């Protein structure tokens, strides 16, 4: 799984998407445009997770792994989209808070804290991320 010199074109594309998202965020930071900063946050996380679960020769992982990763991050993207859409509305609407902060604090935060780890545990076993790669140490370099 780690002999990843082949299939680097896919890694190139992930790095390019990651860089594009960073550029958008950086422009937002320098111009003070909130949407440009906030919108990439959940997409950055999705891009990095997909990069991490690429299989041998950088191929896509099995369907179950891909499905679970996509479900988790779709929920994440949706929560940030709702928060972004509700910026500016300060009416208490969610447990005494405006919708934007309420949904991030009381929904997104527990989702990340409670579900992110089990998603990793499932994907790691399925995709061999926790497999021992050698029984002993090779020579030092």
């Amino acid at each position, binding site marked *: 799984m780690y*002999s990843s010199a082949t299939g680097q074109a896919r890694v190139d594309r992930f790095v390019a998407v990651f860089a594009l998202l960073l550029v958008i965020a950086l422009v937002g930071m320098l111009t003070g445009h909130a949407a440009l900063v906030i919108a990439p946050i959940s997409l950055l996380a999705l891009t990095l997770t997909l990069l*991490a679960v690429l299989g041998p020769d950088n191929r896509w992982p*099995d369907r179950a792994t891909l499905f679970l990763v996509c479900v988790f991050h779709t929920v994440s993207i949706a929560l940030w989209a709702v928060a972004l859409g509700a910026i500016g509305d300060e009416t208490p609407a969610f447990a005494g808070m405006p919708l934007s902060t309420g949904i991030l604090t009381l929904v997104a935060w527990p989702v990340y804290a409670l579900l992110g*780890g089990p998603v990793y545990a499932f994907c790691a076993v399925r995709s061999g991320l926790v497999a021992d790669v050698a029984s002993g140490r*090779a020579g030092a370099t």
Partner: protein
Amino acid sequence: MDEQTIILGISIAYLAVMLGIGVWANRRMASAKEFLVAGQSLGFFVMAMASFSSIQSGWGMVGATGTTSSWGIGAFVAAALLPPLGFTLAWFLLGGRLRAIAQRHEVYSIPDIVRVRYSSRSAHFSMSVAMIIGAIGYMTAQVVASGVIMSLLLGISLGTATLLGALVVAAYTIAGGMLAAVWTDLVQGILMIAMSVVVFVVALGVGGGWGSTMATITASDPDLLALDGVKPAAWIGANAIMILLGVVAQPQLIHKFLMLRSSRELKWGATVAAIGYATTTLFSLGVGLGTRAAIADGRMAEPGVVDDTATSFLDTFTSPLVAGLALTALLAAIMSSASSFITIGASALTRDLMSSLGLRIRHELAWNRVASLAVVAAALYVGLYLDQIIYLLGAIGWAAFAAAIFGPVVLGIYWRRGTGVATTVSVVVGLGLNIVLTLLTSAGWTPPPTFFSGGVVVCAGILVYIGVSACTRSAADRERFDGLYPAAAPPGPDRVASTSQPLA
């Protein structure tokens, strides 16, 4: 017993336990491997607890409590929302790969990873320097925070308390190295979790429950609960990006992956670390909002200094026993991070910097101990020089590490096109930008309210790595990448044979 005696007793007992662990670890200290990576002997629970407690620091508990009270819920979204996701990403991106690299090569530190990944002495050297600067920067926030807490616990002056706190953490770390650091981290993590839950319940009670606390704050100033409120949404978003990418690229976390005894220990680590960290952020959420509500309805005076929020709240609303335990938990958060940075800084000063210059030091363990003392002394000096609140001090160190490490290490172990030249340039740009912005701010420059330097530094550092790598091809670096991992990956017991076909 009077209040001060109870608090004094708790704090002395805590410090004695920490020093006891240092003495125990010292007896097992035979080589630099034990000092720097705890002999690569850790199981998942100790490793995960040590990971979250070394990430959760004085910055996160003392600093973020003050900013949540002053800047509102936006400060919580900025600093505390994304670390649990960051832990998950760290395990995804680094867990298996760093274990594999540690099995193939002798790597005890981040500059070691750079050394085996790139055929570039300048990359190795610049990363070593980045580790030294970042460790001192981050230690500075811990030193200042420990001074605030120790002065309250022991009833002594801030200057003396700062010195004493630094000396205690230096003593057990120098004695027991990373082995002492991770086992004290475990004790400190358990203490932080327990007291964060207790204090959160107390803080909600002070405000009359969650709904009542929110209503009081809304009536006082609705901006305190808005995403685009006291701090602009662009500032909060930039801070959140720095935190998310920064968790993955913090050396105190990356080092822990090098300490695991087996890749099988990775599976549940992200769950333990994410839940542990999230539980401890209940402290800043509860006390921050509880303090603001209490100030709004006149039951508490506005603290003179933002960083005094947590201590003022505990002094006003809790019993001496709870206050003593909670202050000890805050001290635990500070010391757990500080001990990691002392060993990281020491490793960078001795093993990494010297080997990048082609020098080999004898008596490595002894020199690591001397270097540990130098890191603490430097942090004390900088802490007295910089007049920043704890949160911003921590952000400087956090951003420095994230800007320097994310591209070369996190992307570099996936991306064959990453180069040593790009590593050197991105480290220089990331650190340079960070230092320039810090000095400009100290000199009186006032950035626009939407501008958060930490986010800019992190994004710029990573983009420079990607851009320069794309422009500078190196066959030698690609060969290093090809030799980074063990050649074959035989199926292990945890490796489930997939019945479904890959999609490509």
